[in-house]
Every structure is written in structure tokens, then in C-alpha cells.
């Protein structure tokens, strides 16, 4: 008995082609001079997958269709001298086609052996994406109507350096040996007919004839070698290497102020709010800031909700703002309902906009005309600070000046 097996009697139906795949795999591994613990056999769900207990290698038995992705993860974590082999059926390959293509594209270092017996065998003989046209299954007794996937071609197109198809008869161990020798992704499709469901429904078919009629051309196809995908560990810097915001100013704010800044995407709303938050910290306040914008982040409204507080902030929602600052029509449309519900506070509104229904005090200013659309949000916040003093305007100006935007805006004009 081979050193790769712990039990020679395989758990397959009499006459099943899976026997030959195991025997040829073992022969190929022996030819490569590998040792059992250099090999990780990852099996999918299906008749082929119950063979784990026969192997002396490492074995991993996963989910239906997902074994190639699982094996790719294993291969990423192992050194190149380890061989990762995937046993998968035509059904599993259909379910997990995306995983196969992705592994090929990445050139994951593994060898996929597709047991193509033309149907889902374990579950009763249903057709798969590799069932050839005309092949009869329990669900398609008149013959399957769709064409089958061409797996070798698909993986080659995706970037695999090696793909092969063999008729699963006799000794095809050398093809498997070549596949296993590849540093990177290799796929070998082995053609079989399920002896339980395929033969019963197609008693006159012979494997070689079926392969020919179905266009299942045997062969080996190779692409230029490229490095196998194997991520290496890198050194990274702490995410907390953040400069402290020095407290150089003080704020007269005693309690809490909830502020909403509403404008248009691409007009620096979030950036302006973040700079105000930094300035608030510099003024000794606690602050929270959250952004809201449509999924298409480049168009439509952009709103920032902020809470500035003398005391620590545990709840950072803004059910009733003290200040709403609107710099564009998008912002007004987004906040119109909230503005309508305001029973107090102040609404700062760009001069280009109609005054909405509200009980808040309304202050109109020409943010856009004075600073341009791109900087209207910044200028609007500066206006609010000048009029309220909640954060010293010079704290905000200094924060802006020291930010990347400080080089783009002539603050002396403000």
C-alpha cells in the first residue's frame, strides 16, 4: 500500500472512476517524491469527498462548492514546498465556479482535480454546469438542453498557468504529476460517467464517445509561468500615530450645542465639519461628528451632524439641532423637514436659497458668493463661529491653515 494511504479499500461504488483518480493521484505524488505531511488534501461535498479517511496526508473536508476558496486560504498560509490538492466534483465546480476563477486569477498555489462524472451523484443524479448537451439525468430524461462549461478554457482565460482534461481511464498520473509540479494554479478535469446515475440513464454511452460527442477535448494547456500568490507579512505603522490636538484656546460653551452643516457633495462639507471638530477640541470641548450622504457620494447632498459639549458626550444623536447651516439647494432639500420642525435655534442660510418654513431664527449670508461653492461650507462655519463665539474663530482659522486645504484657500480674504 502507498504511504499516502492508510486504507486501500476506497469508499466508492464498484466501477466508479473516482477509484482511478485516487490511484493516479497517489502515483503522481510518489513520482514527485513528496511525503504525506507535505500534502494537504481539501475535499468538497460529493462522493469523492468521503475519501479523506483513506489518505495519510493532511485532510480538510469543507462545504459544497467552497473547497477551492478554502484551499486558496490554506495555500496562502503555507510555504511553497507544501502541496495543496482540491478534490471537487462537477456539481461543486458549478456552485463554486467563482472561487475557481478567482483562484486561477490569483494564481493560488494549488491543484484542483475536478471529478466530472457529468452530474451531481451524491444527491441523486441532477444535472450540473458540466453536464453535456443531450446527456440524460433524472431531472432531464429527454436529455440536458444546455451546453456545458469548458473549465480548462475558463481557468486559462482567468490566468491559470496550467489546465488539462483527461478521460478518466487507465493511467493519467503523469498529467496529475505535471499539474502538481506547477508553482501556482493548476486544474485537471477528469471525465467519468457516474456508475449509479449516469450509466443508468445513458446505458448505451461509452466515456470516450461521450467525451468526443460533447466536445470534451482531452489535452494539456499551459500559459507562461508567473509567481504563485502567497502574501508575505509586512511591517506597518500604528494607526494611532496621530498628532495630538493641543488645547490652545477656550470655549465659552457651558452646555451642549448640536449643529448641522448641510451642503452638496464635492463642496467640502465633511472636511469643513472635521476641521471644526478639531478646532473644538483645541478649544477644550468634547465633540462628535458624523457624515450623511447618498450612496452616490459624488452628487446630491452632504450633511454633517455635530455635537459640541463642555461635558463628555455619550449620546451623539441630534434630534433637535441648535444650529443648522445650509450652503446649497441639495443641503436645503435634505434638511427641509428637520428645519420645518425646529422650534428654536438658528438657521444660517446661503443667500441663493429660498427661506424655508421654520420657527428657527433665520440668518441669511452669501456663503457661496463670498467663498465660492468649493469653500462655502468652510466660510459658513467661520460665519457661525464669528456670530456665536462657541469656538473661537481664530482656533478654526488656525486649524484650517494647518490643514492641506490651508494652502488652497486665501484665508486673509475671510
Amino acid at each position: 500500500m502507498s504511504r499516502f494511504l492508510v486504507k486501500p479499500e476506497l469508499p466508492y461504488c464498484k466501477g466508479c472512476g473516482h477509484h482511478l483518480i485516487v490511484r493516479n493521484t497517489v502515483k503522481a505524488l510518489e513520482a514527485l517524491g513528496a511525503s504525506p505531511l507535505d500534502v494537504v488534501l481539501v475535499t468538497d461535498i460529493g462522493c469523492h469527498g468521503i475519501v479523506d479517511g483513506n489518505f495519510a496526508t493532511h485532510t480538510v473536508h469543507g462545504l459544497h462548492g467552497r473547497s477551492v476558496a478554502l484551499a486558496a486560504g490554506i495555500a496562502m498560509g503555507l510555504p511553497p514546498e507544501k502541496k495543496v490538492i482540491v478534490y471537487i466534483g462537477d456539481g461543486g465546480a458549478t456552485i463554486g465556479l467563482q472561487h475557481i476563477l478567482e483562484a486561477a486569477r490569483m494564481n493560488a498555489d494549488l491543484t484542483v482535480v475536478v471529478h466530472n462524472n457529468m452530474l451531481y451523484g451524491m444527491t441523486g443524479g441532477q444535472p450540473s454546469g458540466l453536464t453535456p448537451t443531450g446527456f440524460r439525468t433524472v431531472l432531464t430524461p429527454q436529455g440536458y438542453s444546455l451546453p456545458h462549461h469548458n473549465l480548462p478554457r475558463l481557468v486559462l482565460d482567468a490566468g491559470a498557468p496550467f489546465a488539462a482534461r483527461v478521460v478518466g481511464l487507465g493511467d493519467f498520473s503523469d498529467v496529475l504529476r505535471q499539474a502538481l509540479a506547477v508553482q501556482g494554479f493548476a486544474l485537471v478535469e477528469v471525465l467519468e460517467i457516474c456508475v449509479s446515475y449516469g450509466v443508468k440513464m445513458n446505458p448505451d454511452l461509452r466515456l470516450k464517445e461521450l467525451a468526443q460527442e460533447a466536445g470534451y477535448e482531452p489535452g494539456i494547456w499551459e500559459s507562461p509561468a508567473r509567481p504563485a500568490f502567497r502574501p508575505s507579512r509586512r511591517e506597518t505603522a500604528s494607526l494611532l500615530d496621530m498628532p495630538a490636538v493641543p488645547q490652545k484656546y477656550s470655549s465659552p460653551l457651558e452646555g451642549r450645542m448640536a449643529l448641522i452643516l448641510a451642503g452638496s457633495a464635492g463642496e467640502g462639507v465633511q472636511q469643513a465639519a472635521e476641521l471644526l471638530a478639531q478646532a473644538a477640541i483645541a478649544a477644550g470641548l468634547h465633540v462628535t461628528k458624523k457624515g450623511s450622504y447618498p450612496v452616490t457620494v459624488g452628487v446630491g447632498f452632504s450633511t454633517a451632524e455635530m455635537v459640541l459639549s463642555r461635558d463628555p458626550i455619550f449620546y451623539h444623536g441630534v434630534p433637535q439641532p441648535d444650529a443648522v447651516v445650509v450652503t446649497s439647494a441639495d443641503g436645503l432639500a435634505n434638511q427641509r423637514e428637520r428645519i420645518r420642525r425646529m422650534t428654536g435655534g438658528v438657521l444660517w442660510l446661503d443667500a441663493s436659497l429660498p427661506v424655508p418654513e421654520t420657527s428657527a431664527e433665520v440668518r441669511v449670508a452669501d456663503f457661496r458668493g463670498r467663498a465660492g461653492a468649493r469653500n462655502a461650507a468652510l466660510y459658513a462655519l467661520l460665519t457661525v463661529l464669528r456670530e456665536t463665539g462657541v469656538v473661537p474663530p481664530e482656533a478654526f482659522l488656525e486649524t484650517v491653515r494647518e490643514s492641506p486645504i490651508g494652502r488652497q484657500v486665501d484665508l486673509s480674504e475671510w
Partner: protein
Amino acid sequence: MTMTLSHSHPVLIDGSRLIAEACVRAGADAYVGYPITPASLIFFHASRRFPIALPAPDEITALQWMAGLSAAGYLPVSATSFPGFALMVESINMAYMMELPMLVILVQRLGPATGTATAGAQGDLLLLNGLISGGYPLPVFCISDLEDCWLLPPIALQTAVDLRMPVVLLTSKEMVMTQESFDLARLSEIAPVHRTVYDNPGPYCTYDPGDGLVPPFLPVGNDRHQIRLNASTHDRCGIIQHTSDEAMANTRRLQAKVEARAPVLYHLDEQEGAQTLVVTWDITSGAAREAVMTLRSQGVPVSLLIARTLLPLPTVYLETIDRYPRVVIAEENHQAQLAHLLFGRRIPPHVRTVTAIGRMIRPDEIAREVVR
């Protein structure tokens, strides 16, 4: 930067950054990501910080890669939200059955289905309670504030290693995407998770727990012992079984190890004379804290329980609740999911719930229910 800082170091920071940094300092070494709002900010930070960061093409692949990396000895992390998490469920069950350590951060958003990607929620607790087929418990910890973003990832990772299993760290959109002023000097040093591998020369069976409940770990591909990992029902050596006694004992052990060893984490702030206990979790913890502070400042005694271990549900929560004639449970979902976990469909009359969807619960709503 080395923690602990001796001087105040105020910054504007989001929870995602703290979570990613805490994971790496705790020893997580591979992040497998997939873009999904509102977890993408964690993906962004993790991509800059983790020793290995991999963009997966889809959510199932992400979990499968994590399982493979975990089998090979890595400690992987991913973050997602419900639509992605839903696709990960079968693979999380696989990792549970294979006993592979990993951390999945679930950032809750408003559902059902795609719902509103940019609206927060606390709507996935009941989903997590039944996540593992057969009803087996999955450890779920929940972040309640920025400091938890720092403290809980290491505990969750240590639990994943100690119990050899996937662990879920639950949070929500407002927690990981809101920027807050925060003093980095408040952060304590994080010690890397303690991890051992089987190093005895004798025979090794992948799922043999010896005298304990958790089998010693050894990575697949090692040169000393054969590893057999199996998502199907299996015996202690990882050989597929139907329903043999040994396999059923192995399956029962999966529950026993969690119930015996999952850490119980919570914050209990009891006030003498309080007749009401406020119980909450996740983002509503902030509103509850403010409500409790306001009530106390008004002379209303009230106690507060913030649940950090959500699953398996610690019995101490019920024991604490039993001491109070009135209980207010506040959470941002439509069903009062924690209340249902505690009491089933028959919530006692002395237990009131405060719920909301599409918005955060306000402190005044909680306070109003306390004094009602």
C-alpha cells in the same frame, strides 16, 4: 506609538481605527475584507495596518480564505454588515465545526435585506442567537463605546483562540463611523493573545480535547502530525461519521466549551435605593448613560446594566434583573430583541421596553420610561 501615554493626547478618532489597531496589537495577523457599508471604514484601516490584508472577491470567499488561513495557523479577522454576513453564515458554521479561531466583526445597519446602508441599527441579535445550525452557541461580544473598541477586540480574539472557534464582535454604524474627540492616553496597553500549539511527540487527534473541552491546536501542513479538519459530523480524529456515539459526544462538546469558558463581560452601575434598572447594549448605551446621569442629577435613583457579552446570554443578567421591581430595556430595533432573548414572547409587566428604528434612541425616551 506605545501605550500607555502619560500625558493627555486628544484626537478626533473613529471606532473603526481603534478596532483595527487593537486587533493587530492583540496578534491578529490577517484581515480579509470585502467592501460593505458601514464596515468599509474598518476595511480601510485594516488594509493599512494588518501584516496581511486581502481584498476578497465576495463574502463567501472571505470566510473561506479566513478558514484556510486559520487552519494554517493565522489569526484572521473580517468585518461586515448583514447583507455580507448572511452570505458568510454557512462558512461560519463550517469554521465552528472545524474549530478554527477567527473574529468576525458585524456592524449592524438598518434592515431588512439591504435596508438602509447608512442608517444604524441593533437588529441582528436574534439572528446571531440562532446562527449555528442545531442551536449551538456562538460567543458574541458587543461594543458600547470607544473604549470598548479598544478593549473588546483582544478579548474576542483571545476567546477565539482559547475556544478554537469563530467569535463575533457586534457593533453598529454609529459606533464605527462617528468621529469623536478622544484622549488616547485613556487606552491601556494590549498584550498579544496567548496561543499555544500541540507539541507532544505522541499521537495527535485533531478533535481530542483530552481532559478539557478544547482540543489543542496544530496547524494544517505541519511536519509532525496529520491534521484532519472536517465540517461534517466527525469523530475525535476528524473522520466523517453519521451519528456515532463518539461523533455526537464531539458535537455536544462544541456547546459545552462555550458555556463553560466564554467570558462574561458587562458594566453594572448600581445605585443604592434604585427601584429601576436600565438594561441596554451597543449604541444605545450612550443614551442610557446620559439618561441615568440626568435622572440621578434630578434625585431619581436608577441603576444601569450594559451588556457586553450578548451570547451565550449570561445568567447574571436575569439574576440582576430579578433584584429590581422595574426594569427598562432600551435597544434600537423594532422587536426589543434583548428583551425577547431574556424573557421570550412573554415580557413581564414590570419590564418596559424602549425601541426605535431608523434613528438612535434618545436619552429622554429612556428617562421618561424610568419615571413613568
